[in-house]
């Protein structure tokens, strides 16, 4: 008899925390903010049991800088927060990008601007995909659409971070973080805990030069070189884009949405399909790098596009950039503060279908 894989019924937040432990994350730095509190709460005991360490920092500024330190030492490390806290983390994220430090950061997006609310929203898309701090940088951004994927992508995030020496952001939202679903946990077969052996600060030995993790480049030409190097790295990521396509093949209209909104839109698409309406869904999983090529391929098949986001229009810029030479996208906003239902999406989708 083959053993059934274990199934557990957990929140998205806990899935992220468990995914991190499965990826052998050894240091976690947190600060309380709703709706991500389950992550530091879980980590405060579980990461210690796993032989790691947990610090409740004095602020998100400090938590992100602790992450910078632990990751510079080559140890798999993570921090999590929600929107207002993410603004404070941007300083360290810019330094991590500039000094090429691999780390995982989780944003359980809530409503903004300012203190906003504690409900779901996607208002942090720009911040998450443009390099939310100062300077010319990007980092990988992964947007899970369900609890299993939150677990899977967290494991992936650590591999991407170390392979490319970059911060990786997991962009969830309050729906995904608080929603419970059954998942199948798994543990990666091989993890290279010493993946930083060639660059991390581990103590200078006689057989190698001292190592510096830094983002200051003052000598003539140095900073331009560093920026060129970073840019080349970001460009190399375009082949690593990922997306989900649902009923797009024969669709006349493609809904573009990510995260929880994609999940809600999928219900609407299913309903319309039953009625014979040719609607499909395009869901970016990597928000940066953005799956532009896949989207453009659809645009070249003479399809129309409607982007739906839980904000006032941010990802729609990337959709338009991707398809600009052949097509365009309409946009439907769900205002942060409102919780959308599949029914509410019917009218805007119908309008687009009918070409209004």
């Amino acid at each position, binding site marked *: 008899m083959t053993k059934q894989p274990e199934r557990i019924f957990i929140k998205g937040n806990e899935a992220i925390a468990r995914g991190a432990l499965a990826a052998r994350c050894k*240091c976690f730095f947190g600060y309380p903010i709703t709706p991500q509190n389950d992550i530091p709460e879980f980590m405060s005991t579980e990461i210690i049991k796993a032989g790691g360490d947990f610090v409740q920092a004095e602020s998100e500024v400090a938590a992100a800088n602790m992450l910078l330190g632990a990751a510079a030492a080559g140890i798999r490390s993570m921090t999590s927060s929600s929107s207002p806290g993410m603004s404070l983390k941007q300083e*360290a994220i810019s330094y991590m990008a500039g000094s090429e430090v691999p780390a995982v950061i989780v944003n359980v997006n809530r409503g903004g601007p300012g203190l906003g609310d504690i409900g779901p929203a996607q208002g942090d898309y720009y911040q998450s995909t443009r390099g939310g701090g100062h300077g010319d940088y990007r980092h990988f951004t992964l947007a899970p659409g369900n609890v299993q994927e939150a677990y899977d992508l967290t494991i992936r995030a650590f591999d991407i971070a170390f392979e490319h020496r970059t911060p990786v952001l997991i962009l969830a939202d309050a729906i995904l973080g608080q929603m419970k679903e059954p998942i199948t946990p798994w543990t990666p077969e091989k993890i290279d805990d010493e993946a930083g052996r060639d660059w991390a600060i*581990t103590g200078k030995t006689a057989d190698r030069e001292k190592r510096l993790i830094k983002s200051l480049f003052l000598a003539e030409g140095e900073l331009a070189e560093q920026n060129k190097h970073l840019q080349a790295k970001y460009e190399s990521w375009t082949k690593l884009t990922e997306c989900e396509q649902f009923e797009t093949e024969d669709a006349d209209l493609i809904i573009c949405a990510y995260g929880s909104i994609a999940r809600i839109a999928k219900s609407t698409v299913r309903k319309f399909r039953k009625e014979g309406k040719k609607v499909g869904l395009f869901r970016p999983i990597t928000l940066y790098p953005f799956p532009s090529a896949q989207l453009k391929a659809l645009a070249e098949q003479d399809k129309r596009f409607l982007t739906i986001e839980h904000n006032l229009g941010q990802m729609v810029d990337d959709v338009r950039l991707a398809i600009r030479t052949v097509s365009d996208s309409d946009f439907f906003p769900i205002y942060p503060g409102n919780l959308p239902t599949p029914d509410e999406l019917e009218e805007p989708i119908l309008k687009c279908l009918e070409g209004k």
Partner: protein
Amino acid sequence: MSEINEKLVFDKPEIIIDRATHYCPGCHHGIAHRLVGELLDEMELGGNTLMTTSIGCSVFLYNYLNVDAVEAPHGRAPAVATGVKRARPDHFVFTYQGDGDLASIGMAEIMHAANRGEKISVVFVNNTVYGMTGGQMAPTTLIGQKTTTCPNGRCETTQGSPIRMTEIIASLGGVAYAARGSLDSVKNIRTAKKHLKKAFECQTNGTGFGFVELLSGCPTNWKMTPLQANERIQNDMIPYFPLGVFKDISEDGGIC
């Protein structure tokens, strides 16, 4: 011809890299670097050291000490060092910070790292100005001291009074050792080294957080000669920032 027999009585510590520094003549950062370097050699810590540098005139410390290092954002060195130490608890981790860095923008980070009792050491160079950015008012600027952002002298009623960091740090639970030394004279430099050694030992023997403030000269921004700068430390700074050990929980220590 008679042979000259030279006896070497003073040499640079092995861990200090043989190169010219970018510091102004008479700057005390060089002395502070040297003391740290001597101790890393004497305590044989070099190969085990993970240094966290800060933002200020000493930003290039990593060019002068032959150890692995990470550069922290302005004020965040105690948080970065916390991360380094938690990730690699068997290593020797220290920060080196100026007064603008530690006592202004980084106030939260230093207070909480100290209060948590992080097993790290902090070297705090207090020269009462923002040296690197051109001599603006710092949280440690003395009352009446003229800087580029208080050209008429620091005024207590609108700008507050200079912060005595060592006393504050000494009051926190997690702290094993807190002392203030000065780099103005040979005698004081020798004592300062003893303070640093004690702070470093608090980390190597696992006692806890060690903090040493070093009163330092910035002749350039004080618009003084190096000698005048030393006199200013003696006449103006030490009376306000008294020297000594403010906390010592190590076995042979005592609170003064």
